[in-house]
C-alpha cells in the first residue's frame, strides 16, 4: 500500500477497517497536529489536550467500522475531538465565564452608535507579534463560555468555514454565524478597552 493512496479518505477508511498498520500511521500523520491543536485551543492545558488526542485516535480506530461516511472524515474526527473536549470540561468546573451582554455595542434609538469608536487597528499593525497582546487575547478568549468559544475556535482560530463548523457541532449555519459574530463583538470590545485604557480587566 503506497502512502500516497492512503491520502484518499475512502482508501484510508477501507484500510483502517481491514486493520492495516500503515493505515493507522497514515491516520496519525494526517490528523495528529490538527486534533492536538484543536484540543489545546479548547482546553488550554497540555496534558488534557494530549489525553483527548489519545481518546480521539482510539475512538476512530474502534468505531471506523460503524462510520457510514455521511460526513467527511476530517469533520467526523473533529466532532469526536470537540465532544471529547466538552466532556472533559464538564468534568471540571471552569473558571467563571463573563456575561458577554455588557460588551455588546450600544446604539441610540435611531440606530446610531451611542459612543465614538476608537480605531486601534493601525496601532496593532506595528507590533503584530507582541507577546503580551497574544496573552491578552488568549485570556479574553478563555473568558468566553463554551457555547461561544468552541464556535469561535473552530471558525476563527482553526479557520474552518461556517458550514464545516455547523456540521461538526451539529448546529445550524445561522446559529454558528450568530455565535461567531457575538464572540467577535465581545472580543473586539475587550480589545478596544485594553487598547484605549491600557489595562487588563
Amino acid at each position, binding site marked *: 500500500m503506497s502512502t500516497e493512496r492512503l491520502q484518499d479518505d475512502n482508501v484510508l477508511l477501507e484500510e483502517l477497517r481491514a*486493520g492495516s*498498520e500503515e493505515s*493507522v*500511521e497514515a491516520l*496519525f500523520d494526517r490528523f*495528529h*497536529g490538527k486534533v*492536538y*491543536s484543536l484540543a*489545546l*485551543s479548547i482546553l488550554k492545558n*497540555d496534558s488534557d489536550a*494530549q489525553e483527548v*488526542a*489519545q481518546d480521539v*485516535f*482510539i475512538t476512530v*480506530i*474502534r468505531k471506523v467500522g460503524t462510520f457510514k461516511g455521511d460526513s467527511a472524515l476530517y469533520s467526523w474526527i473533529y466532532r469526536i475531538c470537540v465532544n471529547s473536549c466538552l466532556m472533559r470540561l464538564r468534568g471540571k468546573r471552569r473558571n467563571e465565564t463573563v456575561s458577554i451582554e455588557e460588551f455588546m*455595542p450600544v*446604539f441610540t434609538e*435611531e*440606530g*446610531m*452608535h451611542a459612543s*465614538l*469608536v*476608537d*480605531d*486601534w*487597528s493601525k496601532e*496593532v499593525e506595528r507590533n*503584530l*507579534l507582541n507577546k503580551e*497582546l*497574544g496573552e491578552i*487575547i*488568549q485570556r479574553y*478568549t478563555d473568558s468566553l463560555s463554551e457555547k461561544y468559544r468552541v464556535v*469561535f475556535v473552530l471558525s*476563527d*482560530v*482553526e*479557520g474552518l*468555514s*461556517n458550514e464545516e463548523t455547523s456540521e461538526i457541532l451539529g448546529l445550524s449555519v445561522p446559529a454558528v*454565524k*450568530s455565535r*461567531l*459574530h457575538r464572540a*467577535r*463583538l465581545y*472580543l*473586539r470590545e475587550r*480589545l*478596544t478597552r485594553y487598547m484605549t485604557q491600557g489595562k487588563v480587566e
Partner: protein
Amino acid sequence: MNCKELVYLLGDYFDGSMEPHLRDELGEHIKLCDVCTSFLKTYDKTRILCRSIRCEEIPDEVREQLKAFVAQKAREHRADIERYTTCTIEERQQFARQLVGLFASGDLPPAMTEVAAHHARHCAQCAPYLKPGSVAPATIPPEVVDHLADLAEELPPGEDPFGD
C-alpha cells in the same frame, strides 16, 4: 442602512454571504460614517489577531509519545479482533462436529433433529454428513461447517440445539 444594521451584518460581510444590494448599501454608509469605519476595521482586526493564538506545532516529545500510544492501542485492537474471530471459528467447528455425531447416534433433541434432517434433504453438500447410524468423519469441510453452524439459528427461541 443605519449603524446598528451595519454592525448586525458584519459577519455576512466578512464571510462573503452578503447580498449585493446590501453590500452596496454598506459601502455607501461607510463612506459617510467614521464611527462605522472604525468599528468595521477593529472588528476585522480582531478576527485576524485571534487567528494568531492558534496553538503552535505539537512538541516533538508529545508527538512521539502520542504516536507510540496510538500504535500500541491499534495493535491491541487488532489482536482483540483476531482473537474474537478465531474463537468464533473454533466454536463453529465444534458445534458442527457435535451436531454430526449426535445426529448419527440419534441423540439430538426432536427439534434439532427435524431442522438437521430438513436441511440434509435440501443440501447435497451437507447430506453425506447428516446420516443416522454413520460414523462421524474426522474432518468437516468449512462450507459444511458454515451451513451446520447456522442451523442453530433456525430453532425456535429458547430451544437448545443439544438439549442441555
